[in-house]
């Protein structure tokens, strides 16, 4: 007796298992393909398997230009292949299929050899996010003047979605900035050069800039939704007697259009 025809689900699982053999288990029975001229149909499935691999490599190389440059094309392809086995794409948009690469790198063998690699990938992902982010009308420096000192310390500042901070023990901005140069021309001193990089977008241009440690601590806390009150304690602990010029920073941030609005936090009166 002939085997029953495979269902549509069977067909798709079976094809999926041939394209992503490491991450998909086919529960389907045999799906028969017609021969393609002189070769069995199943051999032709390699066109799709190679296409999947090539597409992911290309999509990630576009986002992670610097990681690609540091590793070289061969090692980068290996990285993408092992990443895709651990994080098979679940995003409909191929452009964002590399969203988990920084996370994947943190615990990988790659960072044992190149300890800055996960931070560098994180910076490139934030650059990609900033490039596509929605932009809201910012508040102006003048609008900060009417606020009392107490109000200032109780509000939560909402930043543009494009603004993010990447803190690293390595000079990741220097590495990123030379991503279009031939690898052989790059010579960067890596030791004891931590970088705190703010990624933002001005009009349509993504900008990366270094900030000092106190500014990074403050920004990190504010971006996480903390108030100045909540942050200052930690900041004075880190900076000792020298109180950082917080208001000057705020002025600069608003000038650059980073802050969109602020929200009053509720005071617990009980």
């Amino acid at each position, binding site marked *: 007796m002939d085997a029953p*025809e*495979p*269902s*549509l*689900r069977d*067909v*798709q*699982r079976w*094809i*999926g298992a041939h*394209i*992503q053999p490491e*991450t*998909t288990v086919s529960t389907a029975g045999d*799906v*028969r*393909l*017609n021969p*393609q*001229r*002189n*070769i069995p*149909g199943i051999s*032709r*499935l390699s*066109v*799709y398997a190679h*296409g*999947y691999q090539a*597409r*992911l490599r290309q*999509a990630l190389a576009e986002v992670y230009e610097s990681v690609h440059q540091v590793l070289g094309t061969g090692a980068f392809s290996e990285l993408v292949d092992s990443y895709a086995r651990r994080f*098979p*794409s*679940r*995003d*409909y*948009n*191929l*452009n*964002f*299929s590399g969203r988990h690469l920084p996370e994947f790198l943190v615990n990988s063998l790659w960072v044992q050899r190149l300890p800055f690699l996960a931070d560098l990938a994180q910076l490139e992902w934030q650059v990609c996010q*900033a*490039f*596509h*982010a*929605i*932009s809201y009308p910012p508040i102006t420096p003048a609008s900060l003047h009417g606020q009392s000192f107490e109000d200032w310390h109780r509000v939560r500042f909402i930043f543009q979605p494009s603004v993010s901070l990447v803190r690293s023990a390595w000079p990741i901005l220097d590495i990123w900035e030379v991503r279009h140069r031939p690898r052989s021309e790059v010579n960067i001193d890596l030791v004891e050069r931590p970088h705190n990089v703010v990624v933002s*977008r001005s009009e*349509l241009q993504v900008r990366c800039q270094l900030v000092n440690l106190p500014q990074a601590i403050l920004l990190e806390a504010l971006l996480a939704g903390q108030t100045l009150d909540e942050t200052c304690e930690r900041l004075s602990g880190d900076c000792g007697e020298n109180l950082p010029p917080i208001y000057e920073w705020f002025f600069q941030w608003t000038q650059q259009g980073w802050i969109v609005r602020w929200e009053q936090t509720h005071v617990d009166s009980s």
Partner: protein
Amino acid sequence: MNAQRWPQLGCGVGLRTEHYDSIIQQWPAMDWFEAISENFMDSWGRPRHILEQVRQRYPVALHGVSLSIGSVDPLDERYLKHLKALVEQIEPIIVSDHLCWSGVDGKNLHDLLPLPFTEEAIRHVVSRIQQVQEFLGCRILLENVSTYVTYAHSTLPEWEFLATVAQRSGCGILLDINNVYVNAFNHQFDPYEYLRGIPSERVGQFHLAGHTPMDGYLFDTHSRPVIDAVWDLYREALRKWGAISTLIEWDEDVPPFPQLAEEAQKARAISNQICGGAQTSSTARHPSSAARL
């Protein structure tokens, strides 16, 4: 002849990153542009800004690659919402995607994968097209994809499958003439028989592109000029259906814009020769948006 139920836009080209600068600096003469929906629906930065500007000056079609209309997974609600928001903002003249599936069990294979040509697949796809058209509030076109395998349990030829899906669902057909040619070579059928099997009133757009001969098969690379045999097939399609919006696809080894525009001009000249009437390139046309349901 085509029943003219779809707008006739002339001959256009795909909107590609490589050409952004030359397009916005020169606003070249071009009948229309086709934008890949996924490159804009999740971007509020430069890509979206460019598309908005292009739309102010030219007719635009939105062409998706991730609808996965044939997948057995549920339709992706997030995808559809983002697509709808883009459609509402850009007001494209045409909204299209592919008659294929792209993933299963939540994993995306990022490819235009072949469906078996069976009654089960027709029923599945037809009901999903109707849901999508209802949700978007407009008719869509679905494109025939190039394929490298066929299933032994298919019960219909590809053209009958495509025609039946379009007729039962009410969607239109974006007929990729190069894909017809590629599949005819790969699966050994007559491409002219394919054309004869497509109902005229369903054809809303043509694609033309180049492909690459591989070891024993043709690969749909969109990396070269259209070959003569595909131009011949295009002539036959024009004789059969009249002038229909035509788009040159070029996605790999993308040439400078003028070379791409020349390829569109070649299509325009062929269409004028066969269908009569001079189609003119324009930078200031404002036809109405995608056909409403």
